[in-house]
């Protein structure tokens, strides 16, 4: 019977093409607009590493001015991150921060250029599931022994070595030589959850190296730095000893016990530091998982949150329109419904017929809506440009097309409930006489 009813729906569409097309248009516009915003929210507000949702934690320690009521700073000081790193009790842990440097390519045809980099610990790659194209990450001995090794991004490897396996080659960076030990494959999580402090939708860095080298080689640091107290003295060492936060600290913990143990550990550490006159504010350290951290940092922009409320109202207006249009369409079919009842249709079969008819309109509306949403997302991509942030993710994938269509069908049937109810309760007796 499903195909029979679908055929009836198609025939019914052809009978009132203008009315039906208006409905399709209303559904398509409402759903299309909603899906554009939904997609933005879905990705920007999503967790890009859900399978480690309860294992990766960002560490926050509340140093700060006791007279100000700011939240704990987003990053850690050198002193604290080194203390945590030296303890090393988490299953995995990494410090991480940005730097920039000049690369002097061996290839004489390439001029020196500036590249963005990230210092990290050996565990970084395993913690964040970084895929490798060639070679591997360094191991923790490289962190300890200050081995001058680097891992390149796929794009940088493309630029410097034409995409060939460059492991084993030597790279000149900021006047130092580094051995290339690995090249990572495409890896651009959105949001860039492992570093939301420096542009949550930025592209990943081009070079990765053992974090300690940033200190030992005094590489040009990048990324946000905040100091609640002035640096005491000048020079790099004074900066390292300061109360400036600039290092991100992530740990991987395997279960809730490890989590509470770790929180206890950092709280105990903070208590010890209080004895030394640091950590002047009341104890307020945080261990937030990826999702909590993204929410705490308000990664999802206000714009998309406001737009999602507006798009919901736009969808509501479109559906209110659809209710009216479906009602006139179904009521114009009263005679046919009367005949069907005379020929043996009961209310149940009329209900199914009209649910399918509404669903059919929703289906076409959903298909058009998916097309509209694709255009809309393409438009947003153009408006945002590709030079400020990653925008390649701004598109409808198959899942989102599926969601669009299911949502369109569901919304149209929902909008159709009253019209369908009216259609099922047509009194056949008054519609069978001569019109």
């Amino acid at each position: 019977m499903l195909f029979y009813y679908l055929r009836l729906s198609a025939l019914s569409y052809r009978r009132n093409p203008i009315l039906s097309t208006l409905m399709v248009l209303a559904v398509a516009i409402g759903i299309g607009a909603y899906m554009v915003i939904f997609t933005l929210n879905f990705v920007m507000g999503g967790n890009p590493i859900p399978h480690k949702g309860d294992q990766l934690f960002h560490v926050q320690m509340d140093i700060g001015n006791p007279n100000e009521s700011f939240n704990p700073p987003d990053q850690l000081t050198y002193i604290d991150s080194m203390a945590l790193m030296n303890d090393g009790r988490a299953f995995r842990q990494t410090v991480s921060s940005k730097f920039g440097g000049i690369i002097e390519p061996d290839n004489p045809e390439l001029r020196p250029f500036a590249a963005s980099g990230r210092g990290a610990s050996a565990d970084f790659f395993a913690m964040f599931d970084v895929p490798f194209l060639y070679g591997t990450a360094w191991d923790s001995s490289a962190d300890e022994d200050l081995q001058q090794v680097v891992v390149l991004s796929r794009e940088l490897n493309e630029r410097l070595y034409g995409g060939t396996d460059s492991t084993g080659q030597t790279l000149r960076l900021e006047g130092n030589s580094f051995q290339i030990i690995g090249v990572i494959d495409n890896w651009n999580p959105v949001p860039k959850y492992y570093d939301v402090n420096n542009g949550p939708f930025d592209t990943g860095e081009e070079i990765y190296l053992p974090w300690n080298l940033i200190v030992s080689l005094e590489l040009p640091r990048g990324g946000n730095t905040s100091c609640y107290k002035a640096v005491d003295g000048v020079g790099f060492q004074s900066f390292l000893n300061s109360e400036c936060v600039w290092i991100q600290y992530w740990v991987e913990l395997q279960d809730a016990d490890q989590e509470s143990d770790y929180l206890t550990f950092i709280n105990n550490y903070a208590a010890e530091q209080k004895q030394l006159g640091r950590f002047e504010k009341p104890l307020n350290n945080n261990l937030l998982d990826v999702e909590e951290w993204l929410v705490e940092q308000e990664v999802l922009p206000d714009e998309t949150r406001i737009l999602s409320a507006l798009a919901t109202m736009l969808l509501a207006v479109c559906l209110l329109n659809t209710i009216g249009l479906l009602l006139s369409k179904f009521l114009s079919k009263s005679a046919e419904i009367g005949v069907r009842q005379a020929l043996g249709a009961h209310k149940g079969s009329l209900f199914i017929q009209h649910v399918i008819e509404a669903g059919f309109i929703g289906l076409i509306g959903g298909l058009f809506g998916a097309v509209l949403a694709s255009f809309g997302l393409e438009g947003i991509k153009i408006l945002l440009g590709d030079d400020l942030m990653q925008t390649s993710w701004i598109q409808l994938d198959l899942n989102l097309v599926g969601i669009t269509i299911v949502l369109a069908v569901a919304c149209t049937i929902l909008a159709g409930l009253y019209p369908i109810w009216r259609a099922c309760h047509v009194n056949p007796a008054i519609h069978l006489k001569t019109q």
Partner: protein
Amino acid sequence: MLKMTDVSKVFRTELVETHALSDFSLTIDEGEFVTITGPSGCGKTTFLNIAGLLETHTSGEYLLDGTDVLSLNDYQRAKLRNQKIGFIFQSFNLMPDLNLFDNIDVPLRYRGMKSAERKERIEAALESVGLLARKKHVPSQLSGGQQQRIAIARALVGEPLFLLADEPTGNLDSNTAQGVLELLQEINEAGTTIIMVTHDQELASRSKRNIHILDGRISSPALTTVSSEPQAAAASI
């Protein structure tokens, strides 16, 4: 087969109470050809709607093929309509966007019949009204008479107990009407009971049995006589 005892139908609004049928009693047996006549608003249509299970009566008893229909729910009534009653309307009431085959298919669909059997029956029905060759046409491509033949084929395809015809020739010119009446006559002779509402007194007086309704009641038993030569009467219209 159809037995009404003291059937009444009252329409109530806030202000008035209208008795469309009052204490209406009637029995129709298998194979009969009954005409129903009466002036506008007498209750003909109400009788037809109740007989066809399109409306429920207010009081009294209506036995259709032995079943008391008052107690049935919507689903059971729909099933009875589908299996036991064939409808023919003045304005044909074909579905404009279904072709002839699909129009006749409608009642069989609600019966949940298998595709092969439906096809066989529909083609037989089309054959019997002489329109098999045009099964892919839509109603608007047909003349009024042809449309009514399709409506008759649709009414018959489910092999109902009886046909309810509401002014079946009302929208047709006299020549075409003649042909439709002859077709109904043949159907009746083949064994199907026909109940036909008409305003044509002459046609009615020549039928096997005529029931005249006035103000919701059967007006005069005297008129419910059997015509002596029904075929001749029909043929002479």
